[in-house]
């Protein structure tokens, strides 16, 4: 079951990494509230 554990861990690492990159880049991460925003800018 090593592949199972490594697979789950990899998914979490990729997800956290994506969060860090997008958050750091200043992208509006809350898409629900960004309906009336311009690209990457919170109004």
């Amino acid at each position, binding site marked *: *079951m*090593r*592949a*199972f554990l*490594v*697979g*789950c861990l*990899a*998914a979490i690492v*990729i*997800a*956290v*990494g*994506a*969060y860090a990159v997008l958050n750091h880049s200043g*992208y509006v*991460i809350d*898409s*629900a509230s*960004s*309906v*009336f*925003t*311009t*690209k990457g800018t919170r*109004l």
Partner: protein
Amino acid sequence: MRASVRFLFAASILWLAAALVAPAYAQQPTTVNPTAERVQEEQLLKALKKAEGRGTLADTKSQLLEQPAGRDWRQFQQVTLPWIGAIGILGMLGLLVLFFLIRGMIRIENGRSGRTLVRFNSFERFVHWMTAFSFIILAVSGLNITFGRALLTPLLGPETFATWAQWAKYAHNYLSFPFTIGVVLIFLMWIAWNFPSGADFRWIREGGGIIGNKHPPARRFNAGQKVIYWVVVLGGGAVAVTGYLLFFPFYVTDMAGQQLAHLIHGIAGLLFIAIMLAHIYIGTIGMQGAFEAMGSGEVDENWARQHHSLWLEKQAGKGRGQRPAPAE
């Protein structure tokens, strides 16, 4: 002098009369019919498909005041989509329970041989589980978006539900990345074995060994597994693409595109969940020996002969597999 006094008196009377008459005139019924205006608005909406104003915000989308397509989308989101999900998922669960009660677990007919062969290597299993783990969280958090408020708020209360829903949404957004990577890797990794072949038609005709007691020959993947593969690749691809359109709103599409993306994402996601329930069933309690393929990566030779005889012959021809099972 008397003439000028008479003139001033007459002018005053006229001014007074005008002052008295003007309000009375203003209170007369107007010629504008509000109902008729409403009719015009409806006609305009039908003709233009939207009503737009002008504003000072940089984002011109905020100037869109009304669009009939928005009502259709709301109806879909609040009524149609939950019905599709409920029928698809509960219907599939019902079928699987019924099938299990009638057929039970599909056993290895000749028992275990004690010899095993490698079915999936470490990398294949890693990709499968990375995708599966992401999918399960995506499915639960996605179902929460459609059904959570109605089903969980009475149990959890609004504040607890709001906290849970916020975390679920973050998980839904960011686990999309490992899921998408997994779908791409699955597509590349197994494409060579997932084109239709003649054996698939026979497999389908004979019920795939699932319905009835025949065990039609199959290659590495039988027709049922090929269906699952293409559901993952095409369905997973559809939910990924539409999901990113929603995650990064208005980068690629306009408002109508966002609504269409949501429609496709919702339908494809819910049907994807329903079909994956069947995959999970057959890979666990539905078939003896199936889970080992993704667990240890090795399957029993008799299991392979029963379900994938053409693949077993090919592996034997290559001199692979058929080694004693490890001692327990």
